[in-house]
Structure formats: structure tokens, C-alpha cells
């Protein structure tokens, strides 16, 4: 192969590469343009739809964060402020005190405060709540369902493929806008 044919080959190679480069730029630009039309300014985060949740306890075990980023929340206006809270006390509790054997919660994550006779306020200690939904289940079955699960975004690392969502039997996890990241009942 003499020099001139080698140069020719090089030029042809460059031309082919150049054309492909332009073609690819066009394809990528087209893809970006189509994507841009659909794209939304705000990112999404994961949240639980409390209407779909069946309190199966997966949230406490399937999250990549430990303890889980899913916590029980208390929706105060729904709560009955019962002295005998079904979400707080064991069904066979001997007395209505915060002794461990009387509680449903395995981690003592519910705070019980006296307001006035006969009303008691129940607060969630989120730093110890593991999202097991034991209280949620009983509150929904026997009470006002003011306890329910929500993904807490100060804990959640917002995995692109949420591990709990993948295991959720009720398909209750959904992507919601970061601007309105909670699905509260009230």
C-alpha cells in the first residue's frame, strides 16, 4: 500500500466516522428532545398509599436502610385519643401502663401522654420505630386507623429501584412528586 492510497483510506475512514458521529448526535438529540417534552422539573420520591397498604410487616425487613425508612405516623385529627388504644396495648394487657409487656410495639416507639380524662395522646418516636406496622394493623382493624405507614424522606435514600416496593404485596408503593412527598389522610 503506497502513501497516497493509505491517505485515501484514512480520509474515507474519517469521513465515515464523521457521518456516523453526526448521525449519532442527531439520534441522541432526538431522544433528548422527546424525553424533554415528557420530563418534569421535579424529581420523584417513593411513598405508600395508606389506602392500599395491608400492613404486612415487609416494610420493616425489606428496606435497604436499617432501621427501615418507613415509619408509622400518627394522624392526630383522626385519632380517638382512647384511653385503651388498640394500637398501643396488647389485647390481654393486665393494666393500662406503658410497661413493655402491655405494649404492642416491639421497640417502645409509641409515646403515651395524658391530656385530660379520658383522653390520651399517642406520639411516634421515629428514631426507634422500625415500620413493622403491628400498631397500624390493630388501629385499622379495631380503631380509627389514625396510625398508618409513610416513607420518611429524611431517612429514605430514594433508591431508583425501591427494595420494599419490589416486595410490596399490595403494590402500595408509588412514585410521587418531590414537591408533595407525603400521602397523608388529612
Amino acid at each position, binding site marked *: *500500500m503506497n502513501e497516497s492510497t493509505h491517505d485515501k483510506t484514512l480520509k474515507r475512514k474519517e469521513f465515515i466516522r464523521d457521518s456516523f*458521529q453526526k448521525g449519532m448526535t442527531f439520534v441522541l438529540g432526538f431522544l433528548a428532545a422527546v424525553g424533554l417534552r415528557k420530563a418534569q422539573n421535579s424529581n420523584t420520591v417513593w411513598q405508600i398509599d395508606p389506602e392500599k397498604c395491608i400492613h404486612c410487616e415487609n416494610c420493616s425487613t425489606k428496606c435497604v436502610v436499617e432501621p427501615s425508612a418507613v415509619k408509622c405516623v400518627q394522624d392526630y385529627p383522626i385519632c380517638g385519643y382512647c384511653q385503651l388504644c388498640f394500637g398501643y396495648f396488647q389485647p390481654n394487657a393486665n393494666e393500662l401502663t406503658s410497661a413493655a409487656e402491655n405494649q404492642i410495639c416491639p421497640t417502645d416507639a409509641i409515646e403515651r401522654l395524658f*391530656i385530660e380524662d379520658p383522653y390520651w395522646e399517642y*406520639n411516634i418516636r421515629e428514631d426507634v420505630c422500625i415500620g413493622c406496622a403491628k400498631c397500624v394493623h390493630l388501629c385499622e382493624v379495631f380503631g380509627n386507623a389514625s396510625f398508618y405507614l409513610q416513607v420518611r424522606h429524611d431517612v429514605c435514600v430514594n433508591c*431508583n*429501584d425501591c427494595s420494599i416496593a419490589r416486595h410490596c404485596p399490595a403494590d402500595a408503593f408509588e412514585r410521587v412528586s418531590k414537591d408533595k412527598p407525603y400521602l397523608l389522610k388529612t
Partner: protein
Amino acid sequence: MIRLHSMTTFLFRVAVLLVMVMGFQAFSQENRFPAPEFESEYTFPETTQPPQEGLFSDLTDVVILTGFLLLACYFVFKTRSRKGLFGLTVASLIYFGFIRQGCVCPIGSIQNVTLSFFDPGYALALSTLLFFVIPLGFALFAGRVFCSGICPLGAIQDLVVLHPIRLPRAVNEGLSMFKYVYFGLAVLFAATGTGFIICRFDPFIGFFRLNANPGMIFFGAGMLMIGAFIARPYCRFLCPYSVLLNWMSRFSKWHLSITPDHCIQCRLCEDSCPFDYIHQPNLDHKPESRRIGLRRLNVLVLAVPLLMLLFGWVGSVLAEPMAQLNHTVALVEQILDEPEGATEPSTDSVDAFRQSGQSWDALLATANSIRKKFYVGGWLLGLFIGLVFGLKWIRLSLSWSRKDYEPDRGNCLSCGRCFQACPNDKENLLISQGV
């Protein structure tokens, strides 16, 4: 007192059970217990809604990504500095890895973009789209600068390349085909709304979060241990994003060059690439006779469609087992598998479906449409893999004449290790002169 309490407990339970047994469904919609009438001044506490915590907003991350890419270009083209690229690698590992903790990364964004094309209900975030497009755009003009040290998955592997060994060419090429299969599967699973498998099997996210289940840790640690000897195995053999980057970088306008000047054929860079992505010159290369070459090419070109059909058929056969991984399809199977006259639902999913009151027909229709998507997708996936394998076969059968040591444009990760080997490099020249 104790007796009184257990008495109230009992009465409450009886009352509630009565209500439930009587089946006042409407009642369950209302509050079972009336709202308290406080005598003291009591206001309802607010249910807190803590926002997502992050060092910067998503779009700031896009700006940082672009800045890092520009910096990588500067180090690759302007200063030809491996040290600079190494610093960038560490910086990216710290920011994109340990601080930002991964999601969404450009590799995973393939799935978000795919899902947004197939599911009109899915809202693609602007930052995710930009994370997907920007590194590809850079690859089109400057080669795979994203891989050089900005990708946190690449960065963590790049830092453990201790004693790279050279793989036989057949092994290297063979293993690198996995990423095409992985890419195709990821697109199929994202398009059918089944899941994001790239994120699910991300080997290093556990390290970035310093928190993962043992399986993930073992996978990641194994990958890093292998990576000490077989440099950056995830990037070379598995990374689905590298498929796209490869296509872009192959035709890139500019690309990293080993030598800043004319290659003097000194062979010093020969062993500098731990990934074996440097093509060696073959000056003694004699082109084979045109007749034989053409005949072989013809046979191969005819064989490619057959290969595609074969793989396509395999894909269509595998469509059904793959569809079983979809939540909806699996749910339909579970309901169909319920024994006749069973009172208790066999799984939580079945239970949840019954409670939700969705219609069975709607569920069945959704599952069937997903199955159909998997069937078509299985064919397309097979055709794609067949085409890629066929083209690879053709490419391997062709021999090229080369005069200089050149990086493989498609595969080169722009890490800049070869800069240090080239004696034409000014910095190296000064060192050799003892300055």
C-alpha cells in the same frame, strides 16, 4: 383497679367484635371512635412531613456532573494528566459515591428513560434525563470521559486495580458480550414495568451507603477482589451503560490519544493499559486474497440473520418465564393456583388484591397485555442479541492494518494510564532527562 381495666378491655373488644360481626361496612369508613371533645385547650399536633435531605438539589448535581466531565476533558486533552484524572476519580467517588449515594446514576437512568417511553403515567424527572444524556453527549465528542473517573462505580474499581493480568483475547471478547445481554434485559424489564434490574444488582451501592444485605456485600466485595487482577470487571463485562457509551465513543469527534505527537513505535505503552484496550500496529500485516476474504464475509453476512432468528426464537421461549417475574402476572398465577374452596388467601398479594376490590377481569387483561409485551420484547431482545453477536463475529473475522499504537475507540475508558508510558509526553521527557 386492675380488674376494672381488664373488664373495660373485655367490654371494648366485645363491642368492637359485635360491630365487625354485624358487618356494618359503612361504619368502618367512618371513625369507630368519636372525635374527642377536649375541655382543656388542646390543639392537634401537626403530623410532620420531613423533606428529603441532600447536600444539593438534583439540578445542582447535573451541573456538578457536567463540571466534572469538562474537567476530565481538560485532563485528557489539554494537560494529559493521569494525576489529574486520578484526583477526579477520588473526588467523584467521594461525592457521587459516598455523599450522594448513587441514585439516580447514568447507568440506572437507562431504565427511567425506557420506562418513560413505554409508560405514559411515569413522570421522568428532568435531572434524570440529563444524567442519561449528558455523559453520552460527551462520549460523542470526547470519548468515554465519563468512565475515566466520574462514574462512581468505575471509580471504586479503578482504585483497586493493583496487579492487572492480561486475559486471552477470546475470554476478553467473550465476557464483554454479557453487557449486551444485560442491557437488553434491563430495557425489556423496564419497558414492561417489571423492575429496574440494573439497580437491583448494583454491586457497589452497598459500599456507598455502608449498609446492605450480605448478598450485595459479597457480590460487591467479590467484584472488587477480582478487580484487583482483572481490571474493572463490571465496566468491561457487565455495565449496560457502557453499551451506549461504546456506540457513541466509537464515532467520537475527538478521542484520547496515547501519544501527544507522532508514535515512534517504542512499545513502551504496550503493557500500560490494564484493560487491554490498546491496539498494536501490525506493520507486517498482509491482506489476505480478496476472493477468500469476500467469500467468508458473504457467508458471515448471510449467517447473521439466521443467528438473529435463532436468538429471537430463544427469546420468545424465555418470554413466559420472564413474564412470571412481573408482579401482576405473578399475582394472576397465584390466584389461579388457589385451591378450590379455600377460605384463607394463600399469599399476602392475593389477600391485598381481594381487599382492594379490583375486578378480576381487569387484572387478567393487564396481565395478558404484559405477557404479550414480554413475547414481543423477547423476540426483539433475541434479535438484538443475535445482531450484536453476529456483528462481533464479523468484526473479529476482519483484520485491519494499523501503523500506530492506538486506543480502542469504543472501549477505551480514558483513564490516562497510557500517558505515563509515552516518552513523547513532555512531562515524561523531563523526568527521563532528570529535570
